[in-house]
């Protein structure tokens, strides 16, 4: 097949995207496909029109690649593409919208409040910080509304830290969430073609339970797949993850990140296009399910063409 591999882009996750793209390109070539690697730029549409690929493999992360921008172009050009379609991408990319949809579908997600830069700057929203803290409790996590990676995330343990945490979060997006900090085990469920792959657990190597940021440092966490969970726990986590995937309208593949708290799993976010590097969680989960990287890539392509 003639595959256009989209990678790079202008988001802050350009680096991961290039690594995802390289690994996927290798797999596509191994599988005998013809690959045309494209970065996002002024000639993107021109290239796609000229080459008329059978399918576009989207290895982009973050804004423009994961938020529906590229997907809607491809849909307009009538080129099938991997991963979720436009609307699902938009829902996943906007963490606040995603949480509303989860709640409407009766799915558990931590309490939150959303602030836009405009509301703070122009409408005096800062005087509601106290009320926000009452609603979500302390500690809380401040994070940008639409970044895929861990950039801009800060833990707040007292009211006075909110301006600082919001300045950070709002550096990455014009809206930010204040979300209840839920302690528990950190899990990721990758969904491939509507089926849950084995659960991955991120185990912090540092023991400070509030040190959210440490988990994202190199060596800050190790990953276990399948996660060491009981049968009933696994079933519940998978049920919630699949329901979240469906509630947001995802298709092809996606990854649902959850916290397994004492009273059950809580969905934190859904990544429309999770990382596809060798060490990313989706490939690890696929491997645990008996699908090697090439087989996983072929399956993602088949799902796009279905």
């Amino acid at each position: 097949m003639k595959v256009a591999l989209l990678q790079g882009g202008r988001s802050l996750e350009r680096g991961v995207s290039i690594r995802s793209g390289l690994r996927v390109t290798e797999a596509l070539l191994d599988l005998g496909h013809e690959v045309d690697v494209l970065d996002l730029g002024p000639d993107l549409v021109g290239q796609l029109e000229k080459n008329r690929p059978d399918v576009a493999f989207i290895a982009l992360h973050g804004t423009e690649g994961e938020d529906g921008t590229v997907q809607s172009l491809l849909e307009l050009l009538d080129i099938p593409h991997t991963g979720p379609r436009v609307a699902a991408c938009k829902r996943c990319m906007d963490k606040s919208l995603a949480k509303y949809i989860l709640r409407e579908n009766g799915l558990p997600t931590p309490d939150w409040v959303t602030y836009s830069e405009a509301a703070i700057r122009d409408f005096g929203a800062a005087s509601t910080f106290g009320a926000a803290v009452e609603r979500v409790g302390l500690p809380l996590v401040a994070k940008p509304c639409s970044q895929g990676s861990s950039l801009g995330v800060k833990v707040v343990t007292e009211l006075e830290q909110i301006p600082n945490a919001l300045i950070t979060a709002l550096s990455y997006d014009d809206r930010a969430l204040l979300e209840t900090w839920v302690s528990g085990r950190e899990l990721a469920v990758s969904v491939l073609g509507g089926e849950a792959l084995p659960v991955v657990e991120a185990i912090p190597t540092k023991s400070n339970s509030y040190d959210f940021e440490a988990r994202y440092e190199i060596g800050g966490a190790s990953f276990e797949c399948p996660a060491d969970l009981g049968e009933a726990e696994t079933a519940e986590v998978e049920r919630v993850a699949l329901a979240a995937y469906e509630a947001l309208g995802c298709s092809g593949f996606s990854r649902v990140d959850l916290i397994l708290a004492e009273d059950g799993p809580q969905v934190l976010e859904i990544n429309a296009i999770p990382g596809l590097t060798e060490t990313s969680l989706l490939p690890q989960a696929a491997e645990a399910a008996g699908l090697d990287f090439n087989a996983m890539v072929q399956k993602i392509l088949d799902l796009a063409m279905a």
Partner: protein
Amino acid sequence: MRSSAMRDMMEITARPEVISLAGGLPDTSTFPAEAFAAEMLRIEKTAVAEVLQYGPTEGSMLVREQIVEVMAAENTRVDSMDITVTTGGQQAIDLITKVLIDPGDVIICDAPTYPGAIPTFCSYEADVRQIEMDADGMRIDLLEETLEQLEAEGKRPKFIYSIPTFQNPGGVTLSLERRRRLVEIAREKEILVIEDNPYGLLRFEGEPLPTLYSLDGGNFVVYLGTFSKILSAGLRIGWLVTPTPIREKVVLGKQAADLCTSTLTQDFAGHFFRDGAWREYVEELTGIYRARRDVMISAMAEYFPHGATWNKPAGGLFIWATMPDVLSTEDLLAKALSRNVAFVPGPNAYVDGRGASSMRLNFSGVKEDEIIEGIRRIGQVAREMLKLYETMTSTDEMKLPRTEEDPS
């Protein structure tokens, strides 16, 4: 900051629409194409087989002789036999660290230090201790304190790494008095000093100061040089000047790393420095960079927020600026990248997360109009974030110390 996420963020700076004040690039656009063509023609006529062949690991004799000349321009006398040619200054840092450092060994360096040295030191698992600088470079009183403290811990640093002239990223120059004292300390305590001097010839004003190597005579000072900033970064030619026992180890290390530096580029550089107008070329570059520094400084005065500070380097490629401390330059970079401008956030120049509100700005690799536009955009995002912070902290609910009033 999550270091891998940070690296990913820096990937965007390579996109053509981004004004990158993040690099350390020399301006190579004014190198005369005729001079380049003439060198290539000469190679075609006389040296094709030779430049396509391996060369000696320590570097070609012609290049080493020219390095002696280039160093003499800074009143530093060296013996060509003490020189090892390396594949850029970066390999010189790597080799000297490789041959001298075992895991856990202490390296002392400037705070902030060259961001490219940190991954090298860390990959050899060195215990890096950074010494604060002021307008006169590394604070030798603090160095002495650290040395005492290390002695009390039963540790001896393997070497002190410093860029004494037009420091990267700080832009400051180590004063003569401190140079003398540093060399004395090296002798008294028998500690090696690695003097990294990529920018010494790029002086915009003031009198040159003696290199540490010339003050010491090459007993306890190892010298690192490069053609990257005075001729071309693409040729990848740097060098090390070391006492013989160290040189033998360095040559073994280089053999293992890459056998020899490119014969072709050594031939090119050797002849350019022997026959070409390199002094005029360096003078021309210095003029370009001086003008760019001035443009950057006046743009900063115009666009940076009240409370931001910066220095005026007398040479080199970089300005170190510090924003009001409520701003993190790592976060600010994300915002700046959304406006297509980049810089290096301060923490990249430290091993321990210091420098959160500082940034390194490069003025050598970007044209004047782009410098002004880049600084304007950085200033704009900084002001926006400060304003937002102020709005948040001035409500009744958030009674926090306010940032100083912005006069604009």
